């Protein structure tokens, strides 16, 4: 008998007042009992609409059916067969716009908590099952290089390794993980979990070389000369965007990437790490995506009295995951929607001492399909802040496209690929993730890495026949 409750089984979370001042994980996850109860809400539909919403094709009803029976290890194996980072995606996917948006239970009431169940399976196996040594695939004698150890690169590497390829991943940072390590905060995605997933890839035989900036220390062509038969470029998001308003050069203006990297990767919030970070009193975060939420909630945890999200559209248009917006509100982040920064004000020493904002209203939809914000004349006002964090997006990293002849990029600097195969304009070179799409989600990057892996396999087999 399915559980006909219209609502998701609630999950335990840290008290908002407490968690707003620590970096421990916000959501504690399901117990086995809660997971089985929630799993029994799944109707195991014949036409499986949920699966069409998953960029990496997780066999959702199949794994949930195993959870109902308490066979968690088997459930995990089902997820893992198509998704190389379940503990990550269970935490950071925008489920409400993907799998869960298609769930039949969502028609009357809430959809099945697919994300929470995925996370539960991954956590359960990590915590309870002695890591049965992974069987190393038999090597097929072909070498592939992956540039960037973020979600797209790791997924591509994992899929290729399973097929028997000798895969080397080159990472510019000193730690693999990409945005999972430098961007997403500990309270949303504990770094130990990311490390665990990466260790799993290493056990599969994937070689990860850190401190290697491809495009500088070795070019794409040099990698090809070194015998890599194909290359996947997942070099990620690049230069942060700024608004071009007055005062962006003041002391106390951060890009969200810098702010988050100092905190997440360089552990600036811990006293015994050397990297400094500003301890702010009042912070404005400009933008409405997940990165803006992460920066705002991090600023709160570093002790700020006021943290504002300044977003020029309304809450309905906000691109961040609903759950993160909800968590941020609970933690006391102040949402100034339909507001836009006009100018950042500085004191005589060049430090940020305020920001001038203007009220906005929504007009006709623009090319993004969202209603375009229009400034309300004469509605400027002063906001008392000492730190401003810009979270309005990035443009792709120029290092590889500028040092690789024959690699085509569009006018925004994104690598051009054939969307079916993820093949670039250069023979044997594939690409995916933010380097292709511009700032997007972890799961879309993983989907691209997966697609590329399948086509790289096809390409190498075809070439050698």
């Amino acid at each position, binding site marked *: 008998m399915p559980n006909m409750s219209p609502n998701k089984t609630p999950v335990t979370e840290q008290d908002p007042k407490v968690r707003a001042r620590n970096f421990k994980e916000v959501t504690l996850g399901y117990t086995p009992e809660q997971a089985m109860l929630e799993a029994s809400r799944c109707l195991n539909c014949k036409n499986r609409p949920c699966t069409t919403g998953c960029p990496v094709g997780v066999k959702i009803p199949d794994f949930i059916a195993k959870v109902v029976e308490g066979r968690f290890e088997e459930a995990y194996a089902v997820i893992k067969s198509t998704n190389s980072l379940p503990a990550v995606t269970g935490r950071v996917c925008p489920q409400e716009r993907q799998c869960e948006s298609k769930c039949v239970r969502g028609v009357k009431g809430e959809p099945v908590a697919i994300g929470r169940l995925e996370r539960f399976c991954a956590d359960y196996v990590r915590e309870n099952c002695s890591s049965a040594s992974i069987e190393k695939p038999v090597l097929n004698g072909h070498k592939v290089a992956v540039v960037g150890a973020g979600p797209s690169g790791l997924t591509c590497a994992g899929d290729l390794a399973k097929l028997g390829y000798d895969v080397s991943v080159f990472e*510019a*940072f*000193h730690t693999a993980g990409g945005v999972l390590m*430098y961007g997403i905060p500990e309270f949303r995605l504990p770094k130990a979990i990311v490390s665990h997933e990466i260790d799993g890839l290493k056990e599969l035989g994937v070689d990860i070389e*850190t*401190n*290697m*900036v491809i495009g*500088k*220390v*070795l070019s794409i062509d040099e990698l090809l000369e070194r015998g890599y038969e194909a290359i996947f470029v997942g070099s*990620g*998001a*690049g*230069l*942060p965007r*700024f608004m071009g308003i007055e005062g*962006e*050069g*003041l*002391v*106390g203006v*951060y*890009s969200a*990437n*810098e702010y988050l*990297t*100092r905190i997440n990767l*360089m*552990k600036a919030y811990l006293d*015994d*790490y*050397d*990297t*400094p970070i*500003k301890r702010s009193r009042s912070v404005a975060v400009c933008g409405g995506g997940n990165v803006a939420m992460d920066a705002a909630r991090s600023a709160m945890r570093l002790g700020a009295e006021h943290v504002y999200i300044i977003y020029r559209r309304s809450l309905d248009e906000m691109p961040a995951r609903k759950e993160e917006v909800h968590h941020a509100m609970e933690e006391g982040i102040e949402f100034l929607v339909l507001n836009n920064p006009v100018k950042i004000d500085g004191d005589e*020493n*060049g430090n940020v001492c305020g920001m001038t904002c203007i009220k906005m209203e929504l007009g006709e939809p623009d090319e993004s399909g969202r209603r375009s914000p229009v400034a309300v004349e004469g509605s400027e006002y002063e906001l008392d802040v000492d730190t401003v964090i810009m979270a309005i997006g*990035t443009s792709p*990293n*120029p*290092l590889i496209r500028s040092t690789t002849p024959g690699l085509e990029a569009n006018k925004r600097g994104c690598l051009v690929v054939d969307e079916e195969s993820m093949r670039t304009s250069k023979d044997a070179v594939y690409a995916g993730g933010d380097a292709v799409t511009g700032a997007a989600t972890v799961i879309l990057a993983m989907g691209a890495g997966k697609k590329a892996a399948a086509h790289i396999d096809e390409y190498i087999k075809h070439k050698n026949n």
Partner: protein
Amino acid sequence: MFRIAQKRILNDQVILMKIEAPYIAAKVDAGQFIIYRVDERGERVPLTVADSDKVNGTITIIFQTVGGSTQKLAALNEGDYILDVVGPLGVATEYEKDIKRVAVVGGGVGCAIAYPQSKKLHNMGVYVDLIAGFRSKDIVIIEDEMKEASDALHICTDDGSYGYHGFVTNKLQELIDGGAKYDEVIAIGPVPMMKFVCKVTEPYGIKTLVSLNPIMVDGTGMCGGCRVTVDGKIKYACVDGPDFDGHKVDFDELMRRNGTYRNQEKSHVCNLTGEVR
């Protein structure tokens, strides 16, 4: 892990290290930099590469011990290891075409970065006036190397204890007044020094290249911490630089932004010595 192949103390604050980093040594060119991280808790710190040895696979860095991170590095010895070294980063210096004579101006530890520029130009057959400024005689570094890498070495000291008595800008002005026709000036050192060198050359329209040292985290074009305003536009020192046309750089903004953590640094307790600095 990157092994320290050689350590030489140049003066009581400045240290030279040769580090085994064959990949970087094979690729690095004058003007480029690396980022190091001494240990797990260390900062990522950018340093310009002073020299490289492709045969032995080593790069040379010369640094001044100013804060906790450089102190940690300075405490290491030959045979010890640095956890992370990444590079070469930034764009190698591009010189004007058909240059015949340049002035390379270095200030203090900045001379370590001016030196490879001077050496490269000198080897290209360009006439190089190398103007090297120090506060006093006892902190003069790499004099022999600089002499070898230039046509005329002009050491200046602020207190007159050695060489020319005065600032590098005074010496540069004197050389220009004396008829030296420079196709380009390259200035590397403290930000105020680079700013004032640019003020000297501006009236003559001499193209002046400066090597900027903003705060930086990743060094590959992701964090945006190294942004500088050049000709009214945002540029990133890690991918667009570190060299820029000095006449277009907003030096005052750079100085302010470089001081972002000065207050925190002041009250920082050194993990190494227990000292409060």
